[in-house]
């Protein structure tokens, strides 16, 4: 294997690379089983070692931001559900929070508790899906056989069933509204949630054992795809990726929203920055999510769940002038929404709506991290980056 420089030159001029080398350009994607959607990475291979990697995003571009400028604030929420389609709750919350901040609406405590519970369950579901697909990327049984994948999906399904109980949808919930929530939770939801997280907690420990005791798994992930902490910061990488590289940053603790300010959120960091560290951070976050849900599920206060008078027309929320940026900690990092008010229809829609997606930033480290690794490693690294293409391309 080539020795890797501390920081690889992502803009390597192939003309200056060893002229004797017979480089092969390999298009990984846009249709490839392991690109998690439609994503293309052009790899220049020297044998099986990657010399240069150029990611091409945009195959799933749907013009969401432009579309949102045409829609009213109520209509936006079901649309952004499809951005990070692995954790739709987060997308809804990001939009709702920004609008609430611009309109100075106080969200009722019950709704804030619900949002926190939803967010943490969603983080758990998202990480479970990541764990399953990552096993698949590594191949073998966690992969070709897809044993781990099937098990993780089984657990994730129980969380989706909880959401379905509340919202009627398994996936694109449309349950958050500007000012609060649309669907109330019941005592049955609390009971079911408690049993569900109990089961998942036990099973996660089983998976941790599968992972940590497996020599092949460690060999495949340790020291692979090392992402430097400074590089992560300069590329705007947040979330578990940055934390695995030693960046101690979590918006739930550092800029609390919902009711995180009243909770002690433990933030897990690792220093290695490799695929194994990213796995550990995500596994710890799953445990932490379970802990948070368990802590607050019984103390949800009674009361209303919508902080404003419900309107009859889709244009009843109007945001005049002004601009605002809010961000929250999605399973993949800092998910931000930036809105400039005063758009069409006297402020019923945004003049400009920008979504800062953590996956785009995560994918941007590919040219730095891939070179020097083999194709097999590239798939493992891409798996731990966990980019969701719906969110990268929007």
């Amino acid at each position, binding site marked *: 294997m080539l020795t890797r420089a501390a920081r690889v030159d992502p803009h390597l001029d192939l003309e200056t690379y060893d002229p004797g080398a017979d480089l092969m350009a390999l298009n990984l994607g846009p249709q490839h089983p392991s690109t998690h959607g439609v994503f293309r990475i052009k790899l220049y291979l020297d044998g099986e070692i990657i010399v240069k990697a150029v990611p091409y995003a945009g195959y799933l571009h749907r013009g969401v931001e432009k579309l949102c400028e045409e829609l009213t604030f109520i209509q936006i929420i079901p649309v952004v559900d499809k951005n990070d389609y692995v954790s739709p709750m987060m997308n809804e919350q990001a939009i709702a929070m920004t609008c609430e901040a611009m309109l100075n609406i106080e969200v009722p405590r019950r709704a804030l508790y619900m949002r926190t519970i939803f967010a943490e369950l969603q983080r758990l579901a998202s990480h479970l899906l990541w764990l399953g697909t990552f096993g698949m990327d590594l191949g*073998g*049984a*966690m992969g070709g*056989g897809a044993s781990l994948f099937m098990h993780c999906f089984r657990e994730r399904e129980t969380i989706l069933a909880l959401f379905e109980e509340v919202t009627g949808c398994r996936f694109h919930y449309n349950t958050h509204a500007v000012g609060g929530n649309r669907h109330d939770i019941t005592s049955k939801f609390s009971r079911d949630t408690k049993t569900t997280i109990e089961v998942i907690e036990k099973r996660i420990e089983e998976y941790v054992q599968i992972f940590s005791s497996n020599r092949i798994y460690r060999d495949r992930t340790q020291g692979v795809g090392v992402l430097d902490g400074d590089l992560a910061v300069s590329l705007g990488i947040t979330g578990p990726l940055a934390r695995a590289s030693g960046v101690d940053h979590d918006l739930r603790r550092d800029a609390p929203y919902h009711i995180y300010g009243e909770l002690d959120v433990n933030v897990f960091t690792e220093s290695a920055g490799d695929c194994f560290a990213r796995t550990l951070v995500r596994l710890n976050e799953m445990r932490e999510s379970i802990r948070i849900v368990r802590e607050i599920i019984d103390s949800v206060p009674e009361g209303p769940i919508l902080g404003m008078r419900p309107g009859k027309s889709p244009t009843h929320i109007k945001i005049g002038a002004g601009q605002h940026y809010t961000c929250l900690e999605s399973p993949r990092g800092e998910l931000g929404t930036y809105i400039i008010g005063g758009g069409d229809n006297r402020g019923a829609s945004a003049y400009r709506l920008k979504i800062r997606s953590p996956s785009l930033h995560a994918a941007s480290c590919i040219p730095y991290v891939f070179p020097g690794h083999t194709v*097999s*490693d590239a798939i493992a690294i891409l798996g731990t980056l966990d980019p969701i293409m719906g969110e990268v391309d929007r």
Partner: protein
Amino acid sequence: MTSLLHGLIWGLVIATVLLTVAVFSIWFERKFAARMQSRYGPTLVGPAGVLQLIADALKMLQKEDIIPQKADPVLFRLAPPCTVIITLAAAAVIPFDENVLAADLDIGVLFLLAVSGLIVFPVWIAGWASNNKYALLGAMRAVAQGISYEIPLVLSAMVPVVLAQSMRLSDIVSVQAETHWFAFWPLGPGLIAFLIFFICSLAEANRIPFDIPEAESELVGGVTTEYGGMRFGLLWIAEYLHTLISSAVAAAIFFGGWDGPFAPGLHWMVLKTFAIFFMIFWIRWSLVRFRSDQLMALCWTYLLPLSLLLVMVSALFVHYRVVNA
């Protein structure tokens, strides 16, 4: 003339039975894996989905025969049947019972290893003729892996040969029937040799955790990327056949073949073969894939020196036994 007729008939019978077993073993594996993953597996075609593979084969036969425009048409067509033929050829010398074997060659083990080593060629041909980068990468990996693992495979198979002092497979089995199974006697070298043989035959058959040439998550389908329909089916069946035959060989040379009490020899051989075959499934559904350089490191730094040592140890063992006798 009679021996030729005997060989032809038994060869035909064994080949047919093996192919059928290989097909149904795919059903078995799917059921087994499904239970491991809390699913049902095939349930619709026949009782418990047992005829699913027949349905799959019919589907494959009906598929359009696609040959990529830039592929080498002759080699592309040649590779899949070659893999099956070569794999089946190795089965000729496997003793299923005292009389159930197609050819009782005096160089049985050598023939077996030589023929199964040839499998690298059709795989490389398939990868090269496809004219596809993924297929080429897969084929490159397959050749590197096949050739590297051939060496410890041969050396570990030499341990029973040395112990039995014969290359004839039926002799190896009869010696075990008279004394002890080589996996357990002499304790140590035999068992370790079996483990090495087992690991290497996994790698030879491209089974997980050594399915690097196929590597569906990395190389789409490796050498099989451009193949569809029954050509793909043949490549697929060859993999199962290879696994099945490796299990049979391991059962014969390490676990005493047809030797066993109470039941007819053939039953014991089948039972032992399936026990090893089952173990391969089990491994397949619970491990992750190696990376190719790690695979090579395992072969050259651990398996090769160890198998060399084992051959020497067993040679010494035989030497002292002969001297003392």
